[in-house]
């Protein structure tokens, strides 16, 4: 910048360079196209549009739970934990086996038949979810000890390749016939689906076999459960990270590992705990996802895992609210692009959004300017 006493006369080319006008115009053009597409469709059929938003919200909350694990692990060890999506898959399978093989969701009803069935079902479902969370945390703990810990001082890429290896192993081991089988398996929900409609006529329960009234949007108890569970777990995580001693140690480790060690923090165990918490949240997400889509499959972890990772990057990796916001954007993007562009294009749209956001804000929406030394 020149001194401001003499206002320099900029030539046209200098103006183009300084205002970055072409790049901005390009981005604005893309943004306008998206806004145009959305508004046209929203005006044409507002009900469908709102319904899409509700569906997107449901998906976004599941992604948020997975994204938290990615963002925490990346924040603390700078590792893209590709195996996280597969831990999510294991969580779904754990809940599947718990429900269909040992009927764990029924245990309260069996032990105390007098209890109201609703409360018994709620407690039973929570038990299943807790089991999935604990087993996933244990799995992540084992993975961390066996595969990542010995490589802590190795080049970062070795740990990344190991993560890919673990991911492959979980997928293909799960695909074996005696493990999870290579087929789609129908998932038995621990509770019955109840669907409500909401519209001008007011709020009502949708009776099976009855069509949705014109101008109404529908949502099920699964939507409510997913949103409530996700918000609860999110707040719990926020509490753990900001208010407890473990959370403080986590933040210290993420900020500066050697110094944290000097301050008497057991860095290794804190890293293990981080992996465990992230995996537990992914396990819960696995159960919710399987409940929502009612099937389990050994590859089900890849795309949601990747989407959640994209969400974490989008929101600014390392930041918990960022992961949450990014996941909601991802969910909406996926549902809206599937609805208004074409179903197979939704992955492409998700990644296009990521690339565009990264170009505007290189560290994501909530990301702090990079501290990382190149």
């Amino acid at each position, binding site marked *: 910048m020149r001194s401001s006493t003499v206002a320099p006369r900029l030539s046209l080319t200098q103006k*183009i360079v300084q205002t970055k006008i072409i790049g901005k115009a390009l981005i604005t053009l893309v943004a306008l196209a998206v806004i145009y597409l959305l508004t046209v469709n929203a005006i044409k059929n507002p009900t469908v549009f709102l319904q899409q938003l509700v569906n997107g919200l449901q998906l976004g909350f599941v992604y948020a739970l997975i994204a938290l694990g990615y963002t925490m692990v990346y924040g603390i060890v700078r590792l893209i934990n590709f195996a996280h999506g597969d831990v999510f898959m294991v969580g779904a399978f754990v809940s599947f086996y718990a429900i269909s093989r040992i009927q764990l969701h029924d245990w309260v009803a069996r032990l105390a038949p007098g209890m109201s069935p609703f409360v018994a079902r709620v407690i039973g479902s929570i038990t299943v979810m807790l089991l999935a969370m604990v087993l996933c945390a244990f799995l992540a703990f084992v993975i961390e000890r066996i595969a990542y810990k010995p490589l802590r001082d*190795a*080049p970062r890429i070795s740990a990344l390749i190991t993560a890919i290896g673990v991911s*492959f192993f979980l997928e293909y081991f799960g*695909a074996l016939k005696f493990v999870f089988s290579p087929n789609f398996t129908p998932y038995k929900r621990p509770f019955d689906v109840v669907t409500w409609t909401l519209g001008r006529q007011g709020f009502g329960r949708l009776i099976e076999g009855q069509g949705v009234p014109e101008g109404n949007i529908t949502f099920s108890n699964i939507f409510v459960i997913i949103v409530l569970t996700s918000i609860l777990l999110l707040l719990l995580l926020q509490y753990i990270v900001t208010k407890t001693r473990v959370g403080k140690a986590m933040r210290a480790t993420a900020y500066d590992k050697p110094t944290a060690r000097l301050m008497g923090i057991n860095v290794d165990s804190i890293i293990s705990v981080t992996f465990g918490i992230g995996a537990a949240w992914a396990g819960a997400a696995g159960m919710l996802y399987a409940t929502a889509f009612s099937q389990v499959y050994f590859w089900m972890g890849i795309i949601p895992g990747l989407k959640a990772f994209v969400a974490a990057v989008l929101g600014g990796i390392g930041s918990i609210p960022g992961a949450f916001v990014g996941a909601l954007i991802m969910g909406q993007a996926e549902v809206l692009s599937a609805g208004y562009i074409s179903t197979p294009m939704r992955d492409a749209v998700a*990644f296009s959004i990521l690339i565009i956001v990264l170009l505007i804000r290189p560290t994501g929406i909530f990301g702090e300017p990079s501290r*990382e030394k*190149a």
Partner: protein
Amino acid sequence: MKNIDKSTLYFIGGSILIFLIVQILVSVGVLSSFWYTILRIGAVMAIVSLGLNLIYGFNGQFSLGQWGFYALGAYSAGDVTYRWTQLQSSGGLTILLLGVILAGVAILLVRRLVNKLRGLDALSAFGLYLIGVILLAYVAVIVGRELEGPVNAMLNALPATVSKQIVFVIAVLLGGLFAAEVSFLFGLPVLTLGSDYFGIATLGFTIIVKVLLDNSDTMLGFAEMKGARGMIGIPKLTTWFWVFFFLILVVIVTRNILHSSYGRAIVSVREDEIAAKAMGIDVANFKTITFVIGSFFAGLAGGLYAHINGFLHPDTFNFIKSFDPMIIVVFGGLGSVTGTIAASFAWALVLEGFLRLLLPEGFETWRFVVYPLLLLIMMLLKPNGLFGNYEMPFLRQALPPLRKKNQSNENTTAEEVRA
């Protein structure tokens, strides 16, 4: 030509020997077509991985987009030869050839303009390039359609086998150039991102390419690519000779780049970007150059791959497989050309060959269980890769004669792989 280095002679002699041995074994019938395919796939993987080694191993840009460029090369080259052999039309050839040439011209023209506008941000430059390329590519499509007839006549004047080979070689090269130009456009804004963010953006590129290929018949209008059903009917023209020829070519090009001042600049960007900038190296420029060359290799390999089985399917270009070149590069040793080549062949031989043969009937799926375990054990035991930073003599940096005494010393410090 007077004093060719001994190592060069060894390299050329060795390559010819390997080529002849395999060729003779194949012709005699000792190597079954199964192993023949695996060897060719190994060589193709070597070309892809050498490109990635240039980008990641030597320039330090964590790219997962290599597989997307591979897919672009495969489909564009496959489409050109498909049109020639199945539809008797050189339309694909002329349009792609003109498109690539004119897009190249557009890039060069805009580059002059951008260089004049000092300090233009990457996104604006990308916009300018995009406008230029789209305009000239449109011209190319129109002119290419017109040229189809004369080129058809010209190629038909030649014997059928000769014209097929000519179309094939041009198609493979075009596949590479097409991938290179796309990588230039894509890399321009994306290369400004930091290391991991760049990796994710390039992974996104791979996924976008795969999705587009899935819908190539409905959305892009290439009916013969058949979208998610897979493209069939590509002539099987990739022989061991062509694969090996391109592999050697790529190795020599890599070596010569690395030993030029360009190569030293490329490596310096990996070692320390800030220091490189302080030494007057145009970091962004060298990142782009490396990315384009690496993608060119990927496109070449794609073109070769398309003509091995004569069948292309979008699932082959799934992003999960895009980790394969990365695995190979790390497995062989980052920044080691020898290691990359060895690891590519090892990867093809072990994963597709030996494990398939060794595992009992009905246990074929187990090889994907054994493979990650091998990978894990390997990474835990040798985190720096199979070859570390060893190079065969031909590929080693030729140092000035005066410093020959502490050559080994120099080598290790200069080539030390940074995390």
